C-alpha cells in the first residue's frame, strides 16, 4: 500500500499552558472521507487548526505528500493543498459572495473547481453573487464557505461543523451534494455534531474525547453503543 496522503503522529497542541491535544495519530488516504466526531471541547477544531497552521503551538509530525507541515506558515497551507471550511463559516463580511469565492481561489491550484463550477454546484450563489455575504441565510453562507474552500482545488478539504445551526432541509441539500463535492479524488475530514449523518457518509471515522483519540475505524465495524461510549467517555 502506498503512503497515505496525510499522516499525523503524536500530535500535541497547546493554548498557553493548557494542552488541547494529546498524542493524536491520524491518517488520511487520497479520496477518503473521514468523519471526526466528539463532544464539545474534544479538540476537533483544534486538530483542524493544527493541520492548517492556525494553531502553531504544537509538537509531533504532520506529513502531507511526503513533506513536513509543522514549519509551514498558515498562509502557505492552501497552496500546498489543504483548505479549511472553518467552524461558524467565517465569511469575510465586507466582501461580496463572489469576492469571498475569488479570494478562496487566490491560490489557484490546477483542478476542476472554478467560479463557474461553484455556481453550477450552488446556483443560488450566482444569483446572490453581488450581495454582501452577511445578507445571506445560514445555509447560503455555508455554501459560500464550502465554495471558498473548493476554489483553491485542494487535495484535502476540512469541513468543520458542516451542519451546525442549519435548518434540516438545508442540511439534507448540502449532504446530497457531498458526493459531488468530494468527487474527483478529494479527501475530506468532516467534523460533525450530527453523528449518525456523518457516519452514514464516511469511509472511516475517528472519535475524540478530551484531546485524545478514543475510537477509530470503519463505521460498520462498531455497534452504536460502543460509539456512544467513546463519544461520552462512559
Amino acid at each position, binding site marked *: 500500500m502506498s503512503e497515505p496522503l496525510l499522516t499525523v503522529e503524536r500530535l500535541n497542541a497547546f493554548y498557553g499552558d493548557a494542552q488541547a491535544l494529546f498524542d493524536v495519530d491520524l491518517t488520511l488516504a487520497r479520496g477518503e472521507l473521514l468523519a471526526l466526531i466528539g463532544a464539545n471541547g474534544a479538540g476537533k477544531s483544534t486538530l483542524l487548526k493544527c493541520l*492548517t*497552521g*492556525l494553531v502553531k503551538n504544537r509538537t509531533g509530525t504532520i506529513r502531507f505528500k511526503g513533506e513536513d507541515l509543522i514549519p509551514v*506558515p*498558515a*498562509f*502557505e*497551507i*492552501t*497552496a500546498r493543498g489543504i*483548505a*479549511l471550511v*472553518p467552524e461558524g463559516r*467565517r465569511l*469575510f*463580511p*465586507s*466582501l461580496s459572495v463572489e*469576492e469571498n469565492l*475569488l*479570494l*478562496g481561489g*487566490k*491560490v489557484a491550484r490546477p483542478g476542476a473547481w472554478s467560479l463557474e463550477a461553484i455556481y453550477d454546484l450552488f446556483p443560488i450563489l450566482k444569483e446572490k453573487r453581488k450581495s*454582501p455575504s*452577511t*445578507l445571506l441565510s445560514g445555509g447560503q453562507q455555508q455554501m459560500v464557505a464550502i465554495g*471558498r474552500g473548493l476554489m*483553491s482545488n485542494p487535495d484535502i478539504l476540512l469541513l468543520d461543523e458542516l451542519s451546525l445551526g442549519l435548518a434540516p432541509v438545508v442540511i439534507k441539500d448540502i449532504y446530497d451534494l457531498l458526493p459531488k463535492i468530494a468527487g474527483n479524488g478529494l479527501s475530506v475530514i468532516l467534523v460533525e455534531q450530527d453523528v449518525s449523518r456523518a457516519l452514514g457518509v464516511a469511509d472511516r471515522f475517528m472519535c475524540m474525547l478530551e484531546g485524545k483519540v478514543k475510537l477509530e475505524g470503519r463505521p460498520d465495524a462498531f455497534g452504536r453503543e460502543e460509539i456512544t461510549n467513546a463519544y461520552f467517555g462512559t
Partner: protein
Amino acid sequence: MEWINIIVQGILVGGLYALFATGLSLIFGVMRLVNIAHGDLIIAAAYLAYTVIQLTGLHPLASLVVVLPLSALFGYGLQLAVLNRTLDKGILPPLLVTFGLSIIIQNFLLETFSADSRRLNAGAIEISSFSLMPGLDIGYVPLLTFACAVAVVWGLQYLFYHSPMGRSFRAVSDDPEVSQLMGLNNRTVYAAAMALSMVVVAIAGVLLAIRSNFDPFMGPGRLIFGFEAVIIGGLGNLWGTLAGGVILGVAQAVGAQIDPGWQLLAGHIVFLLILAVRPQGLFPKGVA
C-alpha cells in the same frame, strides 16, 4: 459675498485636512492601528521633499516623483521592521511605539534641519488665482490641493472595492486568522497598506509645505486635524473622511472670520459637538 468666499476657502482647506486624514483612516481600517506619528510623517515627507529640491533643484510638485516612492518604501520597511511587532498585543503597544516614533522623528528633524521654519517654493503658482466672480478668488494651490484630495479618495475607494489588493485589505481587516488560509501573509498586506498610507502622507506633506511654513514640531497639530476629520466623517468611509475635512475647514474659516483667535477653537468645538451628538460620525461605514 464675503461669507461665500469664506466658506469656499474653508472647503478648499478641508481638502488638505482630508489628505491628512485618509492615510490615518486607511491604516486604522486595515490593521486597527492608531498611528500617533502620522502627523510627524507628513512633516518628515515635507523635509524629504525639501532635501530633494535642495539637491536636484526640482519643482516641489516634480519632487514627488522621488518623494512618493521613497515614502512608500519607508512605510513598507517601517511596518515590517517595527509596527508589525506591536500588533496582536492589545491596543497599548502600537500607541506607545508610534508615540515614540513621533518623538524620534521630531528630534531627528530638529537635529538635521534646526528649528527654523521652511517652505517649499513653488513659484508663481503659489500666489496665482482666478476670479470665479467678483469677491470670490480661487487660488490655484488650494484648488490643486482639493483636487488631489478628491483624486486620492476616489483612487483609494476604487482600489479598496475593485482590486485584488483592496480585497486583501478588507479580508485581513475582517478576519486576520481566516485571511491566512486564503494565502495572504498578513504582515506583507499590512506593509502594503502602510506603503499606500505613506504615499498619501507624502502628497499631503508636499502640498502643506507649498501652502505654509513648516518646522519640526508641526506634526502633532496635523495629526489632530486628520484625526478630527476621520471622526467627523465616520470611521471606514473615505468619502466621509473628505466631508469631515471639509466640515473642519469650513468651521475653522468661519471661526477665524468671527475672531482670528477662534480659528482652531471653532474646529475643535464642531468636532466635539459631532462627537457628542453622533459618536459614530456623520457617515459611518455602510454596507459596501
